[in-house]
């Protein structure tokens, strides 16, 4: 038997207290009404037992009561909805300038990729007090990243990026569970989030990665695969110039306008014919089968790194040398 009987998870993120407050409100309200029902039923069963109350009253109903006990619960439910929605809208929208870490899930392990180039398997180091955004994709089936101490969860899908964000407020080590059934070792797909003081995190980052930042890996791949041949940094290319494109709207040849986000970049590499930029011919070959998810993430990181400064920036633009992360954490 375990030495302790935990009854409540740790509160290790900025969302935890808010989620818990909502839950405690729900416990109080639902507990109260449940108790009322239980007490009424129990006391009616006693007070109106056949032996004590041989003749039942003949009551059809009461419209007033029906309306009352429809409207009051409805009002309470709407309060619950609104409060839940408020918490949720914070949880689901990553703050601007959150530092981005990429996650690739596969049966049955987690691969984490820091912008600075650090790679981790099943363990994720993050700094205390920084907004962290996980951009996630699966290589095979649907997985899910769940960090109970942070009160966050999001499915990790094949074929499309999903995101999750948190700000850790307490150093420590916390469970990261896969919580979408994914096959044999689903319950073995457990990771650990290690929250470190900022200084310790910097030291860890600098601690060892010869490959260079993710964006620089992407840049090398961009050259290697011949992307630079068509996607020149001027107007002469057979493909659109990608500088500044990230996060901006793009006009397509069928008249639609889409935003050049992570999923757009990934789709353009794998199935370029799906969305052809207006004014260009559909001649880009598909790299489906040539690049894996991690390589795609590095290309995405590279394209982001050559975008305008006011867009979401990774921690570093410069290849080879891991740059220090901004010293001041963003205030809320």
């Amino acid at each position, binding site marked *: 038997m375990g030495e302790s009987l935990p009854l409540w998870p740790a509160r290790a993120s900025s969302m935890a207290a808010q989620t818990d407050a*909502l839950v405690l409100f729900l416990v109080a309200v639902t507990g109260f009404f449940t108790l009322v*029902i239980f007490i009424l039923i129990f006391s009616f069963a006693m007070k*109106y037992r056949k032996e004590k109350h041989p003749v039942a009253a003949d009551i059809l109903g009461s419209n007033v009561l029906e309306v009352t006990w*429809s409207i009051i619960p409805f009002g309470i439910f709407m309060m619950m909805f609104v409060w839940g929605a408020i918490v949720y809208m914070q949880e*689901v929208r990553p703050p601007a300038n959150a530092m981005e870490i990429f996650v690739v899930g596969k*049966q049955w392990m987690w691969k984490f990729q820091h912008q600075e180039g650090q790679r981790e398997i099943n363990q994720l180091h993050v700094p205390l007090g920084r907004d962290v955004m996980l951009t996630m994709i699966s290589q095979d089936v649907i997985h899910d990243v769940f960090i*109970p101490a942070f009160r966050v969860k*999001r*499915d990790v899908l094949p074929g*499309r990026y999903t995101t999750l964000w948190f700000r850790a407020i307490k150093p420590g080590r916390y469970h990261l569970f896969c919580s979408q059934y994914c096959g044999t070792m689903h319950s073995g797909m457990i990771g650990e989030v290690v929250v470190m003081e900022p200084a310790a995190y910097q030291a860890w980052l600098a601690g060892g990665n010869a490959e260079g930042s993710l964006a620089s890996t992407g840049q090398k791949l961009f050259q290697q695969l011949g992307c630079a041949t068509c996607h020149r940094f001027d107007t002469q290319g057979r493909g659109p110039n990608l500088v500044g494109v990230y996060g901006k709207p793009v006009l397509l040849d069928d008249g639609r306008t889409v935003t050049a986000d992570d999923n757009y970049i990934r789709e353009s590499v794998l199935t370029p014919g799906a969305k052809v930029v207006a004014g260009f011919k559909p001649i880009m070959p598909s790299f489906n089968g040539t690049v894996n998810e991690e390589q795609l993430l590095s290309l995405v990181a590279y394209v982001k790194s050559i975008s305008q400064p006011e867009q979401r920036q990774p921690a570093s633009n410069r290849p080879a040398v891991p740059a220090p992360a901004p010293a001041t954490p963003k205030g809320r």
Partner: protein
Amino acid sequence: MSSTVTTAAVERTNYLNVDYSLKSWLLTTDHKRIAILYMLSITAMFFIGGAAATLIRLELLTPAGDLMSSDTYNKMFSIHGIVMVFFFLIPSIPATLGNFLVPMMIGAKDLAFPKINLASWYMYITGAGLMLYVIATGGVDTGWTFYPPFSSTYSNTHVIAAIIAIFIAGFSSIFTGFNFIVTIHRMRAPGMTWSRLPLFIWGHYATSVIMVLGTPVVAIALSLIALERAFHLGIFDPRMGGDPVLFQHLFWFYSHPAVYIMILPSMAVVSEVVSTFSRKRVFGYYAVALASVMIAVIGFLVWAHHMFVAGISPYAALVFSLLSYFVAVPSAIKVFNWTATMFKGSITLSTPMLYSMGFIGLFTMGGMTGLFVASLGVDVHVHDTYFIIAHFHYIMVGGAVMGYLSGIHFWWPKMTGRMYPEVWGKIAAGTIFLGFNLTFFPQFVLGYLGMPRRYHAYPEEFQVLNVMSTAGASILAVGYVLPLIYLMWSLRYGKVAEDNPYRATGLEWRTPSPPPTENFAETPIVTWDAYDYSSLPEED
């Protein structure tokens, strides 16, 4: 041939003894016999699903996955879910009590389509048989939810066969559904207007509408998975530009209303039982009838609350959360109305009444926790954890199964002509209530702590709560075996039942126990409301 006065037992011709041959049972078109056939089949499936649950809870006694391999464990929870949902809960009350009572309660001789009724049982048996074959030859490990790409591409088990089994059983559901709808519309006895219908009928009508509209959608969703497996290519495959989340939409479009298929009939039973044992009309008849219909309608609009973290747009999530709170209102109304029915009643705490009171309490708890998971802020944390498992078991087991047991006990005298031993009935009801709460309440805590569902092995800090849950499950198991024993015992040794031992008001109680094959010697002419206790013949 029909008399209302019972003499010492025996051998007035009724639907049971009119012909004892096997052929007369296997080729029957009598809705009452078909109900019995269903009752035997679903009881068998219940215990098979229960066996899987037993193995699951035994494995979860220890943090390590040491009782069976991971693959076997994954098959256990998949089989438990598939068997319990598709082969027990969905048919349970409608196919047994519904088949038996719907024609009788409206004063008809049979359902509108008796041969289709028999066909529905054969479809059920075929599906169940195929499912048993799947279990015996290696099982299926996709979970009852069959999410792709795992189910379509990566699983190595009998997925297609399991899907075919469910597809066939789905036809059984659809046939039952449209049989009830047509029967209730067209075959009511003279004077049995819509507003005189027992609430049992209203509940089954709403249930049938859901069966008819929802089942085909899960049929096509699962068929597409089967096709994808067979041709190694499919519309949910991201490698073909497909979206696995589309499956989830199609699947849950049925599977959420499915939970209302599972609960509305139990609620229908509770209305009858609480009224009878309070000797009082159901408080707010129209409100309860309307609430049944509203649950069925709104229930179709909330499916994506199972997908809040699946990658849907936040704005969609907001809409589905809002609608999920809407659907809670009619359920709350029903609970208040049943409670008010007991007010100033004249109450007998019989076994069926105890089960129904247990239903109200446990359904309330389950429904309240539904308010938690409808809340987006909370669901992000508790989705796919034991909190969800606890929530739906409170409703499915604490609610639906207790409602089923309430109904079985209530109408047992009518169906079999025998009374069960009341003392054992109460002991079993209490055992089930206690065992159930001990099993599932700790799971709320486990879930909030973060223990994910479908986990074969788990971190050590979750062990104490798991042990409590397994201990409860062992008590619950005893509670379920008890009725099996004493109900079978009563068939031979139980006291012979009167026509209307509980002095209830339904038309079914104005026939002998057990009834003759044609139900009524003469078509009844109804001039009284449901639950009008003054309409009963004089007390002795």
